[in-house]
């Protein structure tokens, strides 16, 4: 599906597709019960073993160096079956991206890369918020030797799992903010029970309370907005990939059902209104895939204004995914609304993914600002 038709990507795609079919799809309902059922530790560890959490990391940092195309291929394939693992990989990759943009490779190597255990490697991050839009920031207090964070940071994804969290913080009423690395097992840190959310149940988030928790500055002070915006530019393509995967799975399940289910004595795929709904889902899925492909090509080749292509792909693909998943449930009727099918989860996950990295309408305004040269 993507621009880079190289063998490596095809292998990655094959591995992710196989993993999704064998590990995710058969137990989707069970995994989705979290936080009211067990967490899927084994699946996460297998995904870690396959390198999915290292996909976009450079080789120098023991990553796979697959770039945005590689990450997108993995996310798209996984999300076609179950987007929760995709949510974990996305959050981890976004936090990694910020650390790399902040040139904090050394810190990353010391604290994160050396972790051999899957959960130790996970970097928690409030990936559903843009800190410069809604200022959920901790308060930083600095002395000559160290910095400490206090306050609340809500909805930190992977916060109950990983060893470290990358958290935004500012001093007093300062407008600028910075990113800090916080040891989640360290003193002064407490995490809530997993938050019960709309979708991505097995990609848990927690609220974090900080009370003079030791923290390490990531990159330069006051550069949080710049780091986040740059990372978001790249990760918009990954968001589009998740949405695209959801649509792919949604269409496949809707089509299969329509070929089986009869109404009025014939397969419902032969009812032209149903066929029209299927066509809309297919068109939205294909459009998203094309936008994603274009965005990855532009970003990986560092083409001029590649950021715009990625942002448009994210905005439009996630909107399409919400519409397609709504119709995907509708095509299956009452069955689609039940948890023993994949469609209702896809709808919840699609809506959740739309909120990644900030409020959806603000993304459109930011895109317009970029066109006006204000962003």
């Amino acid at each position, binding site marked *: 599906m993507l621009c880079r038709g190289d063998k490596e990507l095809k292998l990655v795609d094959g591995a992710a597709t196989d993993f999704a079919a064998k590990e995710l799809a058969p137990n989707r309902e069970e995994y989705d019960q979290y936080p009211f059922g067990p967490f899927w530790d084994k699946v996460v560890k297998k995904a870690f073993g396959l390198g999915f959490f290292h996909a976009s990391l450079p080789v120098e940092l023991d990553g796979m160096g697959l770039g945005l195309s590689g990450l997108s291929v993995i996310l798209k394939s996984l999300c076609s079956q179950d987007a929760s693992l995709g949510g974990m990989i996305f959050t981890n990759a976004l936090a990694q991206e910020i650390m790399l943009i902040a040139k904090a490779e050394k810190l990353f190597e010391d604290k994160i890369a050396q972790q051999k255990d899957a959960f130790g490697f996970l970097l928690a991050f409030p990936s559903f918020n843009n800190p410069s839009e809604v200022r959920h920031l901790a308060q930083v207090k600095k002395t000559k030797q160290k910095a400490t964070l206090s306050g609340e940071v809500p909805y930190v994804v992977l916060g109950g799992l990983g060893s470290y969290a990358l958290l935004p913080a500012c001093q007093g009423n300062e407008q600028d903010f910075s990113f800090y690395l916080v040891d989640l097992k360290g003193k002064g840190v407490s995490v809530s029970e997993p938050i019960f959310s709309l979708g991505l149940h097995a990609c848990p988030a927690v609220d974090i309370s900080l009370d003079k928790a030791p923290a390490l500055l990531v990159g330069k002070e006051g550069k949080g907005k710049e780091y986040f915006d740059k990372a978001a530019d790249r990760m918009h393509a990954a968001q589009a990939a998740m949405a695209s995967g959801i649509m792919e799975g949604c269409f496949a399940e809707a089509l299969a059902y329509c070929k089986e289910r009869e*109404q009025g004595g014939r397969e419902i795929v032969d009812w032209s209104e149903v066929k029209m709904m299927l066509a809309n889902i297919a068109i939205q899925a294909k459009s998203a895939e094309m936008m994603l492909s274009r965005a990855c090509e532009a970003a990986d080749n560092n083409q001029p204004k590649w950021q715009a292509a990625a942002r448009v792909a994210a905005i439009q693909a996630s909107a399409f995914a919400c519409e397609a998943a709504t119709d995907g449930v509708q095509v299956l009727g009452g069955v689609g*609304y039940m948890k023993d099918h994949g469609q209702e989860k896809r709808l919840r996950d699609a809506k*959740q993914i739309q909120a990644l990295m900030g409020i959806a309408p603000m993304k459109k305004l930011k895109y317009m600002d970029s066109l006006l040269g204000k962003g």
Partner: protein
Amino acid sequence: MTYQPCTPEYAQCAPDLNDVAASLVSTHATPRALIKETREVVDLARRFNKEVVRPYVLELDRKVHEDPDFLPWDFVKKANDWGFYTMWVPRLFGGKGYFMHSMSAFVEEIGSACVGMANLIGVHYLGMATLAATWNAPLMMKIFRDVAAGEKAGDPRIISLAITEPGAGTDVEEPDLIDKGNITCHAKKVDGGYVVNGTKIFISNGHLSKWHVVIAYSDLDLPSQNTVCMLVQTGQKGFSFGRHEKKMGQRACPASELVFKDCFVPDNMVALDPEQIKDLKRDAKHTFQQVLDYVLGATRAGVAAFATGAARGAYEEALAFANETEVDGKLLANHEWAQCMLAEMYKNVNLARLAYMETNHHNASSGIYKSMLSKGMFQFSKYAPQFFLDKIAPALVGNGLTTKWLRKQSFDSQPEEELHRTSGWGSLAKFSGTDLGMKNCHMALELMGQAGLRHDQRAEKHFRDAKLLQIYEGTNQLNRLNLFKCLISRACPQSCVFHDA
């Protein structure tokens, strides 16, 4: 140009005002008592929301996620204690005698806090309305008075409607499709009654109901002409509950599987079958279609009212968020784009409400409420002494003659255009209201971003709840086709509906 009075030629041009402006045509005929009681039930619903629904809504939703088999008996008992299961039952049958017209406003209120809980109350009236639409007076007397006795005893005895089958959802709601459908719930005629075999699925409130209005078919090869509507009681031999579905939303309200294995239903529990209606003007298929149209004209307006509630709930959560959250350095409510989104959501709430209200006017002027709102009947049912209704009237209505008279009056006197109008408007309200409800839920989550995703912020629950409204009571696609059939096809003389190939 000088004024000239309208001539019949122009007055008869389409669209007929009776079709498109029921409120204009019927407002003057609306009894004042009806307006007063609508205000009363809205006040009551708001109090109930404050005291019962809002403090419990998130806890109940979590409980059902933790234990998918949890049944909210506690809530049903509360609703029973508050008198909600007899509120819209006619006084003649032991109820409080509020008119169904006001129920939509009530469920909108409860639905604005929790559509699932609104369903725990409202679905009871789906069963009640179906039994009422058969005009079987002795059965109504028996069942509704039992519901009233349950209220007095603190023992809820609610009613469900069992129609959907594993292989047939849309088919069973449309007599034009049913003969081609995969229908399996069989009612075999035997001496003294029927023996039922088969399964019903997705039955709202099934596990919580004492009474089940079951639709089965005495001939599976020609179900449209052989529909049997009967009452089955929980605990009855041959009847059991199957699985309790795990739904995306509306978790408070269980969706149940009902299983019938050689379940004998005596004749006195058969509300309607082909034998009972053979003397009516229309054949069995079209009479049963009339029953469905009577019921769905009202209950689809009810679903639109639930959806208005969901649209309102989503809007109110988004508004609260916009009032307390700074985005990009200023209050969200001060962003022009957010103001426009909120205005759009406010509009959606009010358009959804207008749709169900207009449909209720149609039901009052042409549908299920028509006979109840005729002046004499309204005054009688509202103001007749309770002693008379309890002690004397049951003997008068509890015989077959009354049922025959009621059926003649209701079924035979309803012209086709009234049938089409109420059925078409029921569909219009249903798909418009539920689409607008879903639209608002999408918008609320977009506006709220991360906060909207959290269960404790309530918006996501409205989103999950609202989706089902586009599916039950006939999918929105079926309802669009029904609207075409009822209100548009006459302008397309060569068209045929449900024969797409």
